[in-house]
């Protein structure tokens, strides 16, 4: 299984990246000060701590996808480190899949570290760590896996700077697909409607992974929501990785 070797090495590569330590450090700092900000609004401080912390863990995971994931493949092509690797008996899809898995491992570790820190802090401050709160973090991680697959595809298709920008845009639009769907209500332009419809179906829908509202209001979340999110993650990522493999197979390195 050549891809596991690539994955473990990518994990090591990204874990040694300075950006990762900076991001985890900064996010822990943000979680800590969110409590202090929360104290300004009497009685709401724990809710604000949850809001802030989950948002921070999410955003910093996104930043990792954008700044590490989106240049993961192109960097290997530019720096020619790929030459000695692909001259080993290995299919190119195995390389792509390994890179993806390795980056997911890093996302997992960073989300896990920030999540553990947040839950312990929340508990110490008198909050109750419910299963759904943990579920919220798991969902958020699955969303990151989807974004990461988009980043990998883009990093095969374009230069690092373009894929960084497009990954970021994908994230912001994917976050607001509900608004995208709503555009036709306000516009008569057929082409615009057509385009927004296409975008709605092509771009990842990160709302599937967003249960922060429900979790912070202590509503119970049906298990179908998790199941659907998981299946969505598997299918969407597989399609992205398949396209990335097709694209790199065609490329002359």
């Amino acid at each position, binding site marked *: 299984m050549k891809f596991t070797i690539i994955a473990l090495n990518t994990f090591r590569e990204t874990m040694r990246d300075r950006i990762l330590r900076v991001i985890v450090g900064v996010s822990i700092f943000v979680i800590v000060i969110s409590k202090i900000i929360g104290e300004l609004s009497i009685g709401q401080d724990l809710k604000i701590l949850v809001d802030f912390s989950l948002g921070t863990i999410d955003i910093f995971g996104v930043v990792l996808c954008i700044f590490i994931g989106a240049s993961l493949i192109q960097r290997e092509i530019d720096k020619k480190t790929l030459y000695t690797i692909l*001259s080993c008996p290995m299919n190119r899809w195995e390389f792509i899949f390994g890179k993806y898995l390795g980056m997911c491992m890093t996302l997992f570790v960073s989300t896990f570290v920030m999540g553990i820190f947040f839950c312990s802090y929340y508990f110490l401050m008198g909050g109750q760590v419910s299963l759904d709160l943990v579920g919220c973090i798991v969902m958020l991680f699955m969303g990151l896996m989807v974004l990461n697959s988009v980043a990998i595809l883009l990093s095969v298709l374009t230069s690092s700077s373009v894929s960084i920008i497009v990954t970021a845009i994908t994230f912001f639009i994917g976050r607001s697909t509900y608004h995208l769907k709503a555009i036709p209500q306000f516009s008569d332009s057929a082409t615009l409607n057509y385009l927004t419809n296409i975008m709605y179906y092509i771009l990842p829908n990160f709302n599937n992974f967003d249960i922060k509202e429900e979790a912070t209001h202590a509503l119970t979340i049906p298990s179908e929501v998790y199941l659907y999110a998981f299946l969505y993650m598997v299918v969407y990522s597989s399609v992205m990785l398949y396209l990335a493999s097709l694209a790199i197979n065609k490329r*002359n*390195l």
Partner: protein
Amino acid sequence: MKTAIETKNLTVVFRGKWGVQKRAVHNLSLKVSEGSIFGFIGHNGAGKTTTIKILTGLCRPTSGEAEIMGISVNNVAARNKIGFLPENPYFYEYLTAGESLTFYARLRGIPRKDINKRVDELLDEVGLKDAKSRAVKGFSKGMKQRLGLAQAMVHNPEIYILDEPLSGLDPVGRREVREKIIELKKKGSSIFFTSHVLADVEMLCDEVALVSQGELVSFGKIDELINREVISVDIHGEGFEQGCLKKLEKLCKHMVHKDNTVLITVDTEEKAQQAKEILEKGGGTLRAMIPHRENLEDFYVRNSRGV
């Protein structure tokens, strides 16, 4: 003799920016016999690296075929047979030399229990033993080249494909790599390497192919191709009587003199002998006599006619 590498009518056309097509390799047919050292020579941009990229599966041919020990290069199994040293090899800079080789050993499917031993052996063999736990980031060009060789040797491949293994190294480094190539041949491997310096090829190869603008210009046993005759001789003399100068001047193609030293160039060894006699009769001393043989430029000029 069995064939290690074979290309049949290989053509590679790159589609560059704005759809401009660039033909890097054209209709190239080659055969490399097993157990030989094969030199692939040509100027920069001749298509050497592109041919190597086809053999290593990094590029796809536009048309034609290439095989490694009878296995098509489109089949990843062909990669089992080769060890590849790219031109200016690049490695992950965040890894140490030891970690790098461990990574390649795993990709090459060396059993886990043998990896540490194999990595130490390789580091020792290329003289990087002391650099085992140093990050590749701080490596000199020569050290990267050695790590590149070690990486290619991980699985004791039957065929080595080396892209410009001698360029950019200091004289000591060049000698080491040359010796390594000869050693690999002695162990029974075939070596395919590129160079733009004819002397490298002359010294090492059994067979050569010369490419120019992506096309094969000549191909065969080195002795049959390269003119071994001396094409010019440089003579350096001093302390002679001024009277000799006139006689020398008639003999030579080219002469420079200053005070009582002279540097002349003649075009045959016979004339060189005559010049030497003149010099010695005139009471001078012969400081040096340097014969020159055909270089890549001359070889090109001679072989490119009619192409």
